């Protein structure tokens, strides 16, 4: 099963020069079911940017099994948008920052019950990409939805 559902050329400009809406595009890039299958059978591993890791620890109190449970519980209708994003602030290859095509999902998730729970608000906002050659799901951002900023992304 292909992880990529849709292909798109990266933007010409530095992402810093683009507005929030300028970074967004549609439709979704990654095949959610394929990603979930890959994570379940070990073909894919999750890797967090340090920013996402700090958010996951401080704001969500998650461990690796909670992250896996979150991804396993996602459904297509939890998709919010897709956008170009840097995975971390520093990484540059040949002096150029590398942007990744990310999908953004948002879901109420209870890590105790390990399932989607509608009333568990604020929802968990997760932006990720797949590095197909490295067999990694790279999580760029993961935190409780910040009401105004994140709702406007819908």
């Amino acid at each position: 099963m292909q992880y990529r559902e849709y292909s798109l050329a990266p933007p010409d400009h530095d992402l810093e020069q683009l507005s929030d809406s300028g970074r967004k595009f549609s439709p979704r890039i990654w095949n959610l079911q394929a990603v979930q299958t890959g994570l379940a059978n070990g073909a894919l591993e999750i890797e967090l940017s340090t920013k996402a890791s700090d958010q996951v620890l401080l704001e969500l109190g998650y461990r690796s099994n909670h992250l896996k449970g979150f991804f396993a519980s996602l459904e297509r209708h939890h998709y919010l948008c897709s956008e170009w994003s840097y995975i971390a602030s520093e990484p540059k290859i040949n002096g150029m920052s590398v942007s990744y095509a990310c999908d953004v999902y948002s879901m109420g998730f209870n890590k105790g019950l390990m399932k989607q729970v509608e009333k568990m608000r604020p929802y968990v906002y997760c932006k990720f990409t797949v590095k197909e050659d490295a067999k990694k799901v790279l999580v760029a951002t993961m935190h409780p939805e910040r009401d105004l900023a994140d709702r406007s992304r819908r």
Partner: protein
Amino acid sequence: MIYRKCTHCDIGNTRVVEYSMDIPQGRRKVKVPGFLKTVCDGCDYEYVSMDQLDHNADIMESCAENIQAAVYPGILRSIRERWNITQRQLSRLFGAGESAVGKWESGAVMSGPSALLAQCAYSVPGTVEYLAHLADFKLNRRELHKNSVVLDAIAWRPHKGNFVYSSAANSHLYEKNAEKVFDRVAA
């Protein structure tokens, strides 16, 4: 320590490094060392693997259990998830303003006493049940996580007109009484 090739640039070697994090402690912050991440020597890409995340989560847990008033937003969310309650409901249990827990989970500074109360609710079995009893709030037992340590420790038993906490370890009556005592507290 050389770990492996960087997944980002495919050129540099990565190594595991330690770093510190600032953990809220009431109105202050305490710098906690020992967190792990992987850094690429070539492109400076930094990431945290799942093993490292679990190691870092152990440190966070240790802070929550051993440093007075060390409460971060994830603790409050964990309490709510354990009992499957909303921010507003947890605010009520804490006797705080309606939106207090929402603000704390968004990063607002907690006072020392509030942080201590949250720390007890997180770490001391029976605290949330007792707060619910005081607030006349019904916890919905059916929504609790079956394997939660909280369920294992629920044992408020009536003693001379008061509810007395009795741990599973020291009460052979625990299993028999837990159900009806919980129902009494919840009711």
